């Protein structure tokens, strides 16, 4: 099943830097899709289009359509708040909010108007378990979230977006600041999560893309060069440019 259909998406920033040119892409449900390529290729830009976080930056022009369950995300009529609850996001640097671990988890739900404490607690516990963090923090949920280590913070951010029960999770280089052990934990959590969620990942290395991706898309300077089955793309790329990048000849 295709969860997201991107049709002829183009985007231009005000300062003319990064942009997307004519992207066409179908993103599968219950799978990890990796968007990879050198910096400035438009991966994060594409990711930020999916939950309309780009609304707040200086976008000059955007055209094309992004259909999420058949509805155009880019439509000005779209309820952005509802969209962002449906499409969770985890950033490169863990953004823990200046409050306790527990409050970080329930924050999104409280914003959505949930007040029942039992519901909030269950959501916190469930999402912490999904993000493989429960055992490490269950005894100190009221500690300030900044006290956690970098890897724990990143999994907390993952748990926080999971607490809202989104359908799609966007991850923008979620492990770029983490040590290999924490990275392994996050990747393992993602493999579990893909059974229930649609995951779109911008990995911080080709190796991570190769390790995790069910489907992979190679971006180069705003262009989608190649998109296909992960195993296939990394072992037997069709495009010369993809092969050069994957084998490390440039990038």
């Amino acid at each position, binding site marked *: 099943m295709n969860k997201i259909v991107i049709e002829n998406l183009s985007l231009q920033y005000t300062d003319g830097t990064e942009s997307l040119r004519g992207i066409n892409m179908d993103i599968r449900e219950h799978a990890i899709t990796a968007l990879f390529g050198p910096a400035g290729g438009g991966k994060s830009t594409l990711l930020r289009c999916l939950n309309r976080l780009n609304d*707040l930056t200086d976008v000059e022009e955007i055209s094309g359509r992004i259909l999420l369950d058949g509805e155009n995300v880019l439509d000005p009529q779209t309820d952005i708040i509802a969209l*962002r609850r449906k499409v969770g996001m985890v950033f490169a640097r863990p*953004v823990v*909010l*200046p409050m306790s671990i527990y409050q970080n988890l329930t*924050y999104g739900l409280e914003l959505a108007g949930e007040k029942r404490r039992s519901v909030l607690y269950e959501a916190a516990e469930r999402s912490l378990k999904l993000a493989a963090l429960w055992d490490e923090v269950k005894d100190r949920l009221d500690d300030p979230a900044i006290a956690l280590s970098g890897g724990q913070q990143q999994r907390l951010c993952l748990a926080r*977006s999971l607490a*809202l029960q989104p359908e799609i999770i966007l991850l923008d280089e979620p492990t770029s600041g983490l040590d290999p052990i924490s990275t392994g934990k996050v990747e393992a959590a993602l493999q579990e999560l893909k059974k229930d969620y649609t995951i779109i990942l911008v990995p911080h290395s080709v190796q991570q893309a190769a390790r995790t991706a069910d489907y992979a898309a190679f971006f180069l300077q705003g262009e989608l060069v190649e998109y296909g089955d992960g195993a296939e793309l990394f072992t037997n790329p069709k495009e010369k440019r993809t092969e050069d990048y994957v084998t490390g000849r440039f990038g």
Partner: protein
Amino acid sequence: MSLNWALSLSYSINPDYTYMKSELTWQEFIITRAIKASGYSAIVFVALIFFFLLREGLPTLGEVSFSNLVSTRWYPIEDYFGIVPLITGSLIVTIGAALVAIPFGIGTAIYIAEIAPRWMREILKPLVELLGGLPSVVLGFLGILVFSPWLRVFLDLPTGLTALTGSLLLGGIAVPTVVSVAEDALDTVPRSYREGAWALGATKWQTIWRVTLPAARSGVLTGVMLGVGRAIGETMAVMMVTGNAPVLALSLGSLFSPVRTMTATIAAEMGEVASGSVHYHTLFFIGLVLFLISLAVNVAASAVVFRSKKRAERILS
């Protein structure tokens, strides 16, 4: 070991090196001493001022009976030295000013930092700074000629020179300080905090109220304290618009009658008092009380700010 060897090598290779080194140490010596001296001098000056205040103000306690000092009548010509009405006058005007300055100041700071489009921000920011630079006597002039007559007619009061007038004017004077500092604090909150909240489906208002503002809390609080500090120490504008009647201000109704603040009392009477007289010492004593009040406010504020900072540091380490 190898480092020593490399150093001795560089000495032998470069004969100028020792000379340059001593030159540098000399400059360094002078500069560090100069900086140290200017740092210490700030402390020394404050200590001297404090000492002066004590020397001139404390004799009051021997010259005026305590019951006289805490009475409610200030009439120095007939030896009534009750400073309570002056303290309440200062407090009511300052609290009123804070009630005006805090919501307006923080609101404006939020608007400039979070909501206003870029071009608007570039106009507003310098404008606020400019407003903060206006001499208070100019504002006092505005208050006495325009604001207080209008207030008198609008509220149907016997006089427009009231505590309320002073509060509103002082609030206006404190607003730019609050805005300027609070806006800087909001501006330094990392963009990623806001994006994190937005990505969770927070509205713009929820993000401001529950993420950005708490994250900038200590800076915002500093702005408020500086603003209130400015209000409590303000003299000229207050003297011009509050009517200067040393009446005990305890009820809400006294907002609408004239009051006299501690600062205004000192400013108005110091020029006409005989040096070394009881009245003279009492004025200094008022200054001492004012000093202690603003010291207490500052200590309380920095205690709050410092505590949160220490907590953050502990967590980060």
